[in-house]
């Protein structure tokens, strides 16, 4: 899923200077799971904005709404009525969500409340790890389901390097060496022959940016 992080309140306030009526718009999918922009985070952010404005003597109107997926036009369209009531929308979705809202309501300025960070997964409560670089040329079949491109500090295709130290990375001793993890996983699966293969440099243009995928419905 997409992992995002809220911008500092100071930055959000600076973006919203001068607006009296705001819609704080959340997304019920990835950013809900990573505690950045779901229904609860929308309520917290709206409350913070009201408290901060009160301090300055303003009382802005803040509407709150959360849609299931902000990156889908059909779901965002339902908010037309709310968007028409406000001067600006503050979106707590990933960049795709912000752009969907901006495209659907071109007359209303849309501001991002989050920084979209990476594609990852929850590790433990409150911790999310990047584990996919969306490179467009998946390598996981050869590495036991552990991605060296993103989890190895050097992104090595033929590892480990000389810097592996008892299973830890020389770049950051807190982190596991991805290639040690790969070795252990392949050993567990009896596929160590894959470690002996040489993999040539990858095609870094597998995805021409901006990416586009067309598919027929199943």
């Amino acid at each position, binding site marked *: 899923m997409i992992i995002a992080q809220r911008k500092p309140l100071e930055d959000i306030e600076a973006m919203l200077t001068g607006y009296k009526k705001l819609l704080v718009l959340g997304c019920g999918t990835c950013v809900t799971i990573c505690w950045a922009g779901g229904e609860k985070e929308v309520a*917290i952010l709206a*409350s913070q904005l009201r*408290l901060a404005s009160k*301090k300055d003597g303003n009382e802005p109107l803040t509407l709150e709404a959360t849609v299931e997926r902000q990156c889908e036009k059909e779901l965002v369209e339902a908010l037309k009525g709310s968007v028409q009531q406000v001067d600006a929308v503050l979106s707590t979705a990933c960049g795709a969500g912000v752009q969907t809202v901006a495209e659907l309501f071109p007359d209303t300025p849309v501001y991002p409340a989050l920084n979209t960070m990476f594609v990852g997964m929850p590790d433990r409560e409150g911790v999310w790890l990047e584990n996919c670089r969306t490179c467009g040329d998946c390598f996981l079949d050869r590495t036991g389901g552990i991605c060296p491109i993103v989890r190895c500090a050097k992104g090595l295709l033929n590892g480990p390097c000389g810097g592996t130290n008892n299973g830890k990375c020389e770049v950051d001793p807190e982190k596991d060496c991805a290639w040690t993890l790969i070795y252990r996983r392949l050993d567990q699966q009896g596929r160590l022959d894959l470690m002996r293969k040489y993999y040539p440099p990858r095609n870094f243009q597998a995805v021409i940016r901006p990416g586009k995928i067309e598919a027929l419905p199943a």
Partner: protein
Amino acid sequence: MKVQKATSPNIIAFCCAQSAYQAADAAGFMRLSYPDNIRVIRVPCAGRIDVLHILKAFEKGVDGVLVLGCHEEACRHLLGNIRAKNRVQKAKSLLQEVGIDGRRVEMFTLAPNQGPRFATIASEMTERIKELDSMKPQG
């Protein structure tokens, strides 16, 4: 709910029904004196308190919030008091971000028979809030 402005600071005390609420009762029963600006709200467990309850209280114009729960490892719901403690920490940082001193919200633990401790907490929190001369949301 609109919190009425009093001369002394308005403090909301969210009290766990298993401990702090009974302690508040005990304080009354023991005829202990504590400031009358503490508004007690009974909750089934301190773990019921969410960051949003605390933020909303400040939006309504309170000057301080107390979250009072059971001692650690004495929660009827096992982790309610631990969760409350973490949420109070989170609320402190959220308030700090908007320029409200984080010391305006605090969590304390107490047992149902600690009436005197309830009175002490109420008095100390009132004194603390009086000392904090920073931002006061206009109710």
